[in-house]
């Protein structure tokens, strides 16, 4: 609760709304105590005095009544009526909602059908019908506005009650023999009241507006009594000759409703947990880059694609999560590099950083370079980056149900992948899309092209994802756990497909996975990541045969082997460290059986020959021995 108020207080707009609203309420409360002229005393000699006239600060209306006094009394009335209407609607709506939700079954059905029926009306029609039946008058307008809003409360409260009615404490109360009435009053109601209060606070502004509206139409408060709406209604006939009589009550309504809305928004934001974490921000077109030292825009590199000392962080509020801290790697044409690690090791972030696809905010690339044939793409301007994306460096993502657009046909998504890089006619695009689907071995490609993603199986969707990556004959494919969501046989098919494509087209592949089994099947070389760093790298077979880093050894031990007898499968104890508070030295040390004091005392370098290296002081096998 205190966290809630803190959040609310941090929202300056909401605080402003609260202050203004507070002032208006205080003013309304002390109105009877103020030395005001009687609001209903007419003085036709003094009609339509302008504001700042002697004795009448805001002037007078068409009957010579003091506008300041009428405004304050009218505000008081409008607030009271709005509040009463909200309270009435909330109580009645909550009663209906609780009964429907608690009893369920037929009771629920009948009540909710009735509520739906009321909601089928544009609200004012219902309000007008009620006023028509009861006759114009402030109390009748209040009843009309309340009744119109009952369905809103009933629906909300019913939803919550249904959830509560099946909770253990309600069952316990039933078993204890409590009557339904007592359960509702002592178990359900206390849990529902906060929701009622919040719903009420967000609708009060609306209620004030509505009752003012009915009064404006002449169906609410009747002369000489006036709320803000009827003041405005009466002033309308003199709008052109004496606008101040209309402007004054109108502005007052605006002030009240706006401050309530500001406050309501603040309350809603403070209550929405997704906004608390700052997660509800949209990623920009490219990841934000904020590098202290800018590497050369172009240098000679050995590989086709190479990363140099890449740093990517997530800045959330005051915390900095170092997702990637100094990763260097490279791939040559026709080569497949596996990047392996547990979830949270930074392998996906590394891959997404290459083309600026890390969600930003909160992602920031804080250092290093990603070079395609020597050209650094991290500092590249957006148009250049866009033209490289999908054309030279293509991605295959995990879980194609989420990564394909749900409302576009797969064919259109394929054609778009081509057409956003070069002009292509409709028929050519379609023919090419069918070719692509065939090349990833999708049967009946001519028919499948018109399917939506949800009409396909997981394996088929993954093939579509691969086809899309192949659309522009890219040089590099970055595959981010493309087989994780699939079952084993489909996984094997996808892997052999990727392998064939690599051989046929000379593709360089960066393959991200957490599964050493997959790496063994597909990758020439492998880099093992832990807590945002590469801890070991080398040719796949060498690493598999003789893992040097204790973490690599544990990862390999996690892979079950068929026919390998009763080898004990070992899970790695503990969890990867949170990357906002990394320990000194080796991040794996707290989980490592070989760890010694020295491991956590200083930076440990990635040491070894050019292709085989390990970041460990006490490796399982020393690399020199192995090469000897």
């Amino acid at each position, binding site marked *: 609760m205190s966290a809630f108020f803190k959040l609310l207080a941090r929202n300056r707009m909401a605080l402003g709304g609260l202050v203004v609203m507070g002032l208006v309420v205080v003013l309304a409360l002390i109105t009877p105590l103020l030395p005001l002229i009687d609001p209903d005393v007419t003085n036709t000699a003094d009609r339509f005095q302008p504001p700042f006239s002697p004795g009448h600060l805001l002037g007078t209306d068409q009957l010579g009544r003091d506008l300041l006094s009428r405004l304050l009394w009218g505000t008081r009335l409008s607030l009271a009526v709005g509040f009463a209407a909200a309270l009435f609607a909330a109580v009645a709506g909550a009663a209906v909602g609780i009964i429907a939700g608690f009893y369920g079954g037929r009771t629920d059905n009948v009540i909710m059908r009735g509520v739906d029926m009321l909601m089928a009306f544009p609200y004012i029609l219902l309000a007008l019908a009620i006023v028509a039946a009861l006759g114009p008058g402030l109390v009748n307008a209040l009843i009309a506005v309340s009744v119109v809003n009952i369905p809103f409360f009933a629906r909300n409260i019913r939803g919550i009650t249904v959830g509560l009615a099946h909770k253990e404490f309600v069952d316990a109360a039933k078993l204890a023999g409590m009557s339904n009435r007592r359960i509702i009053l002592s178990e359900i109601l206390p849990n529902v009241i906060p929701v009622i209060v919040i719903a009420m606070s967000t609708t009060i502004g609306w209620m004030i507006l509505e009752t003012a509206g009915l009064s404006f139409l002449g169906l609410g408060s009747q002369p000489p009594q006036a709320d803000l709406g009827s003041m*405005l209604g009466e002033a309308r006939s003199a709008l052109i000759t004496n606008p101040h009589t209309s402007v004054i009550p109108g502005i007052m309504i605006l002030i009240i409703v706006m401050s309530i809305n500001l406050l309501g928004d603040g309350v809603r934001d403070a209550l929405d947990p997704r906004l608390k974490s700052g997660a509800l921000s949209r990623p920009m077109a490219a990841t934000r880059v904020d590098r202290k030292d800018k590497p050369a825009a172009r240098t000679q590199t050995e590989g086709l694609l190479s990363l140099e000392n890449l740093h990517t962080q997530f800045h959330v509020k005051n915390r900095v999560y170092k997702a990637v801290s100094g990763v260097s790697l490279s791939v040559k044409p026709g080569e497949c590099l596996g990047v392996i690690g547990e979830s949270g090791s930074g392998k996906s972030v590394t891959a997404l950083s290459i083309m600026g696809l890390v969600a930003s905010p909160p992602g920031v690339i804080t250092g290093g370079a990603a070079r395609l044939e020597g050209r650094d793409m991290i500092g590249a301007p957006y148009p250049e980056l866009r033209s490289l994306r999908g054309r030279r460096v293509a991605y295959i993502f995990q879980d194609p149900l989420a990564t394909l657009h749900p409302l576009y046909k797969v064919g259109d998504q394929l054609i778009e992948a081509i057409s956003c890089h070069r002009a292509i006619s409709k028929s050519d695009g379609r023919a090419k899309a069918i070719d692509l689907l065939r090349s990833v071995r999708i049967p009946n490609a001519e028919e499948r092209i018109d399917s939506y993603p949800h009409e396909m199986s997981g394996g088929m969707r993954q093939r579509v994802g691969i086809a899309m990556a192949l659309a522009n004959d890219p040089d590099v494919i970055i595959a981010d756990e493309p087989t994780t969501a699939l079952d084993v046989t489909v996984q094997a098919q996808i892997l052999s497909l990727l392998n064939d494509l690599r051989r046929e087209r000379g593709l360089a592949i960066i393959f991200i996975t957490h599964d050493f089994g997959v790496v063994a099947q597909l990758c020439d070389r492998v880099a093992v990541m832990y807590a945002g760093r590469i801890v070991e790298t080398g040719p796949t077979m060498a690493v598999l045969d003789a893992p040097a880093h204790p973490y690599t050894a544990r990862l390999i031990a996690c892979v079950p082997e068929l026919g390998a007898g009763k080898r004990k499968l070992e899970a790695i104890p503990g969890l990867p460290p949170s990357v906002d508070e990394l320990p000194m030295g080796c991040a794996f040390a707290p989980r490592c059986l070989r760890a010694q004091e020295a491991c956590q005392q200083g930076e440990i370098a990635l040491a070894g020959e050019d292709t085989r290296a390990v970041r460990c002081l006490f490796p399982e096998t020393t690399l020199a021995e192995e090469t000897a």
Partner: protein
Amino acid sequence: MGGYILKRLLLAIPVIFGITVIVFLIMAMIPGDPATAILGSYATPDNVAKINRDLGLDKPLVTRYFIWLWNMLHGDFGTSFSLNRPVIDEVLERFNNTLILAGTSFVMCTVLGIIAGSISAARQYGFADKAITFVVLLGISIPSFFLGMMMILFFAVDLRWLPVSGMYAIYGGGDLPDLIRHLTMPALALAVVATGVVARLSRSAMLEVLRQDFIRTARAKGVGEGRVIWGHALRAAMVSIIPVLGIQAGFVLSGAVYIEIVFQWPGIGRMLVDAILQRDILLVQGGVVFVAACYVIFNIIVDVAQSLLDPRIKT
């Protein structure tokens, strides 16, 4: 698709039936004697009895309801005593005028609201976002009738750009340009609140969609940012925007009552308020039932549009 539309229409029948029951029951709550209200100072016992017989008010409630329903099904909504004219004729004529006003506003609020909300989301926390958010907040807080009055003062009285009120000029009007000149202010005043609501909703729907994985896929393909926002993201966001448009239509229709009064627009809202003040019950009943039924049908159109947009909805 045809089957789906038919199913939705069939499901609407009980709803419209329920609406007639609710309206009839509300009207039956009227205290006192409608005959006395109609006759005013001519209310001699003989006259009252005659009116009651003429209106069928001497029969039991249930019978009266079914007579009323039966007659409505035959297009007979009764006769308005204050206008001395068949209710249905008056309702159709007035509703047509309201449709011109509310329809224009509805299109405005939909188009402007979605564009403003999408820009706001795409430029989250930027200047455009803050400006739009503020204008939207102002828009949803200002009572439409007050806004209308201020517009009259500014655009009609001060600047003399547009006529103060009415639907056509009294002399020499009646053509389309004349209608547009008269329509501009009320339609705008009516659209403001709904635009604000649609903009807010569109903003949050777009923010929600822009975080989805398929947006990242589109960017990874090399799709330009303009197409990502106005194509991929908006298309997906429409799925959650469209259902709210149906509710907004109800708000526009409701707001039209105030705007018609402020701008002297000869629509059904003004007719209803006048009828209430005159206690012309048949006119109120007929008008409310007619508009509510149209609203139900409109919501079916919205649902059908939704199913056309989202192939995942089983039709």
